[in-house]
C-alpha cells in the first residue's frame, strides 16, 4: 500500500461534563489508503461524528495524532488547517449545510473562490450540471428539495478536486428512494474524482457500499473489516443523477 492519505495514531478525545470527564474516543488508530472507501459505523453515541471531526481537522484530539497526506494536523494553525480543508478535503453533511443566502451556484463556488481559483464560477456551473441541477443555478437553498440540496452539497464537496471526501450520514435526512439515488451519485462521483471517501453512518446498507468498514462502540474500534480486497470500479457513476 502507498503512503496513507489519512493516518490516525492513538487518538483520544474527552469532554468535560457536569458529572466529570466523558471519554468519547480512546486509542483510535488506523490508516486509509488513497482511493479507499471507508465506512465508519456504530450506534448513536459511539463517537462516529467526533471521529469525523478529528479526521477532518475540525476538532483537535486530546491525545494521539491525525496525519493527512503526511502532514500532522496538530502542527497546523487554524488558518493552515482551513486552507488544507479547502484545497484537499470535501465535506457532505447530513443536514446539507448550504449557506442559506447564497444561490446553488454560489454555494458550490465558495471553496473554489476561497482557494483563489479564477475559474470558480465555470467549474461550479459544470459541477451543477454534473449533479443534474444546471437549471437551478440561481435558486436559493430554501427553494430546493432535500435531495437537491444534498446534490449541491456533494458538488460543492467535489468541485475543488479534494483528495479526501468526508460524508456524515449523507442520506440521513432523505427518504429511502432519494437516499439510494444519492448514494449512487456519491460513490459514482467520488470514483470519477479518484478521491478517498470516509463515510460515517449507522446505515449498514450504505456502509456496505464501501470497501472497508470500521465499527465503533463506546469510543473504541471493535472491528475493521475489508469488504473487498480491491477497490471496486464503481459502475454506478452512470446512474441518472436526477433521480435524487
Amino acid at each position, binding site marked *: 500500500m502507498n503512503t496513507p492519505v489519512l493516518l490516525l495514531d492513538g487518538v483520544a478525545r474527552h469532554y468535560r461534563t457536569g458529572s466529570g470527564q466523558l471519554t468519547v474516543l480512546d486509542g483510535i488508530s488506523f490508516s486509509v489508503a488513497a482511493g479507499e472507501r471507508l465506512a465508519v459505523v456504530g450506534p448513536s453515541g459511539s463517537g462516529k*461524528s*467526533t471521529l*469525523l*471531526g478529528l479526521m*477532518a481537522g*475540525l*476538532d483537535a484530539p486530546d491525545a494521539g495524532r491525525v496525519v493527512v497526506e503526511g502532514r500532522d494536523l496538530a502542527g497546523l494553525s*487554524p*488558518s493552515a488547517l*482551513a*486552507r488544507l*480543508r*479547502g*484545497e484537499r478535503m470535501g*465535506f457532505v*453533511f447530513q443536514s446539507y*449545510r*448550504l*449557506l*442559506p*443566502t*447564497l444561490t446553488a451556484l*454560489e454555494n458550490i463556488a*465558495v*471553496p473554489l*473562490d*476561497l*482557494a483563489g481559483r479564477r475559474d470558480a464560477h465555470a467549474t461550479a456551473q459544470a459541477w451543477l450540471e454534473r449533479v443534474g441541477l444546471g437549471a437551478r443555478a440561481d435558486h*436559493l437553498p430554501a427553494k430546493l428539495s432535500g435531495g437537491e440540496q444534498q446534490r449541491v452539497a456533494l458538488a*460543492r464537496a467535489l468541485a*475543488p478536486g479534494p483528495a479526501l471526501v468526508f460524508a*456524515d450520514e449523507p442520506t440521513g435526512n432523505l427518504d429511502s428512494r432519494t437516499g439510494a439515488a444519492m448514494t449512487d451519485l456519491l460513490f459514482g462521483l467520488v470514483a470519477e474524482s479518484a478521491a478517498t471517501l470516509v463515510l460515517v453512518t449507522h446505515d449498514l446498507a450504505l456502509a456496505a457500499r464501501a470497501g472497508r468498514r470500521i465499527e465503533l462502540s463506546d469510543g473504541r474500534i471493535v472491528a475493521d473489516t475489508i469488504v473487498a480486497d480491491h477497490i471496486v470500479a464503481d459502475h454506478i457513476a452512470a446512474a441518472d443523477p436526477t433521480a435524487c
Partner: protein
Amino acid sequence: MLTLRLAWRLARGQSARIWLLIACIALGVCARVCVGSFSGALERALVREARPLLGADLEIASNQPLSAEQDADLREILPATARTAQQVRFTTMALAQDSGRARTVEVRAVDPGHPLYGSVRVTVASLDALFGAEAVIFVQQELLDQLDAEVGSTVRLGAEGFRIAGVIEEEPGLSANMFALGPRVLMARARLSDTGLDGGGARLRHARLVALDADALDGVAQTLRKRWSLSERMNTGFGGRVENEQGVALRTAAQASGSAARIYERVGDFLRIIALAALLLGGIGVASLMRGFLSESRDTVAVLQVLGATPGRVFRVFLWQSALVGLAGGVLGALAGSGLQNLLLALGRSYLPVPAELGIDLPAMAWGVALGVAASVGFAAWALVAVHDMRPAALLRDESSAAGGWRGWVIAVLLFAAVLLVAGYEARSWRIGPAIVIPVLFGGLVTALICWPVLYLPRLLARMVFPQGAFGLRHGLGNLTRPGFRPLAAVVAIAMAAQLLGAMATYRASLTADIEQGGAGQRPGWFCLGVESDQVDEFARVVRQQCGVEPLLSPMVMARLKSINGSEPQKVEGGTHEAQRDRFMRGREQRLSWRAELGPDETIVAGRWMPATGEQVEASLEKRFASSVGARLGDVLTLDIQGVQLQATVTSIRAVRWLNLRPNFFILLSPYALADAPQTWIAAIPLPADGRGAGLIAALATRFPNVTAFDIGELGGKLGVVVERISLAVRFLGWFCLGAGILVLIGIGIGTGRQRRGDAALVAVLGGTRRTLVASITAEFATLGAISALCGLACGVLQAHVAFGFFLDLEVVEPWNELLAIALGIVVIGVLSGLAACRSVFTQHPLAVLREE
C-alpha cells in the same frame, strides 16, 4: 474582492438586521452632523458678518486715548484710502428723571458717519439727531421698559441729562452679545465730557475703527503689531484681550467674530460630545446586533471554515458587512442630519446672533460619515472577534457560544481609548471631552454589573406574588432570563441614554434653583464697580440707609504680570480650551486686591495666609490661576502697576468659591503693599432679608454717577435663559441617545423572533389568547425599560451629585417629576418598541410555526 463579495452575499435575506444596524449608526451620525452643520452655518455667518459685527476691518482699542506717537504711527501706516472712526464704549448707570428708576447700560459714544460698516436702524428720529445741538441718545426698547420711560423722556448718564430721541432696532454687534451687561445706548462722542464719566468715573474703552481694502488689511495689521509689540494671538477667548505695555489691543474683524463665536463654539463642543454619546450607543447597538447575528450564524461560520475560509477571512467578511452598514448608515444619517439642521436654522432664526444661511456642510457630513463607519467597524470588531474562537466542529455538535477571549479585551481597550480620543478632539479639550464621556461609560458599566442579578428579581417576585394565574405576566418576566436572550446590551444602552437625560435634568433643576435662590442666600443682591476711595464711606452709608445691610468692599488696582522668578511667563501654543485659558490668564490685565483676612469664599490649599504687617510683599494666588500661569509657592512675581514694578513672593494658594459672586481675586497682595496705589473699590451688597433695596440702584445712580451697579438677580435671569436653551439642545440630543438604545431593544426583540413565534404557537395550542401574548411581551419589555430607566437615572443623579456637590459645592436639586416622566417615557417607548419588534408573534399562524419548527 472575494471577501467583499462574500460579505455582500451573506447579507442577503438579512434586511431587518441590516436596517437596524444602519439605523443605529444613522441616528448618531444624524445628531453629529446636525450639531456640526449648525455650528458650521453659524460660524460661516459670523465670518460673513464679521465687518458689520465689529463695524470695521480693524479695531485698535485701549483704556486711554491713543498717544500722539501712536496717532502718528497710524497716519503713517494706514493707506490713504483708509477710513477711520473713533468710538468710546463704557458701562454706566442710566437714571430716568421722571420715574426715578436706574439701570446699568452699555454706552457707545460715536462720531458722525457711524458706522463704518453695517447699518444702524433707529426709529422716531434720524441718527443725525445725535450730532445736533440738543443732548440726545438712542436706546434699546428694553431700557425704555425697564426705566418706565418713553421716547422724549430724559435720562441721566453721569452728570448730564439726555433726551431719548429714538429706539435702536439694529446696530453692529447688537445681537451677537448674549451676555451684555445692559441695554445699549448710543450717544455722541463729543458729549462724553459733559457726562463727567471720562475723568475716571467709568472704565472707558477707546476704539479706533479702520475700514480699508481687504488686500491691505493683513499688511497693516502686521506692521502695527510689530511697531507696537503686539502679540499675534490677540483674542484669547473668555472675552479677554492681550494688550501691549501701553494697554493697546488690536483685532481684525475676523478675530472679533471669532471672539463672538467662542461662546457658541463652546456650546457646540459640548453638544458634539452628546452627539458622540448617541453614536457610542449606536455602536453598542451594532455590537449587540452583530453578536446576536454571529450566534445565529454559527453554522455559516463553521461551513465557511470547513470550506477553507480562515478565521481571519471570516472575520473580515463580517467586518466588511459592518463597514458597508456603517457607510450606508453614515450617509443616511448625514443627509438626515443636514436636513434637520436646515429645519432648525429655519425655525430658530430669531435665536441666532446673525442670520445663518441654509445649505449643506460637506465637511461636517464627511466627518459624520467617517465617524459612523469607524463606530460601526470598531464596535462590530469587538463582537466579531469571537469568530476566532468559533470551531467548525460546531457543525457536528452543539457548542457554547464563543466570547472573543483576549482579543475581545484588546479591542475593548482600543475602543475605549478611541472614544476618549475622539471625545477630546470633539470637545477641543483633553479634559472636558473625556470628563463627559467617562461618567456615561462608567454608568453603563455599573448598569451592566447590576443588571444580571436584577433581571432575575422580577421573575422571582412574580412567582411569589402570583403563584397561580397571571400567566402572561409570569411568562413575560420569565423571558428576561431565557437562554439565548441577550438584553444586557439594550439595558445598558438605554440606561446610558437615561443617565444623560437624568443628569441634564438634574443639572438644569439645580442651576435654576441656585439662580432663583441666589446661591442659598450667599450670593449678593447687587454688585458695584468704580467706587472711588473718597466715596467709600458715603457709599456704605447709602447702602445701609437703603437696604439695612453692610456692603462688602474690596480695593482694586490694575496691574500686569511681567515675570515669574525673573522670566516672562512661557508662551502657550495650541488650540485647546486649556491652552486658550492659559494664554488669557498670562496676558490679561490683572486685578490686584488685598484683605486683612481670608474672605468667606476662600480656603488656603497650600502655604500659609500672609501676615497683616511686614516688610516682604507676599502674594496669594487662586489655585487655577496659579496653575494657568505656572506659578508655585516660593516663586517671585514681578507686577507692573501703572509703571511701578513690584515684586511679591507667593506664600499661599487659595481655592475660591466663585459661584457666590462676591468680590474675589486671582491675586491678593500683602495689605501694606498697595495702600498708596491709585485704586478703585468694588462692592458686593448682600440681599436684605426684609426685602428692602428697591430704590438702591436709583439712589446709587443719583449719588454716585461714576458707580456702575449690577442687579445679580437680573444677570441670573439672563444666565437662566442661556442654561434653559443649552439644556433644550442637550435634551434634544439626549433623545437621539435614547433612540439608539431603543433600536438595540428592537434588535433583541427581532433576534429572538423565531423563538418567540414558537412559544406563541405553543401558548396558542395550549389555550392562550392574543391578550396573553400581549401581556407577556408588555411585562417583559416594560421591565427591561424600567430597569434601564432606574439604573440610568440613578447614575445620572449620582453624576450630578458628584459634579455639583463635590466639585462645585452647589446644592443638588432632584427634579423628581421630570425624572419620573423620563422613566415613564422610557417604559412606554420600550413596550411599544417591544410589541412592534415582536409583531410576527401575532401575525403568524400557530400551525405554520409548528410545522416550521
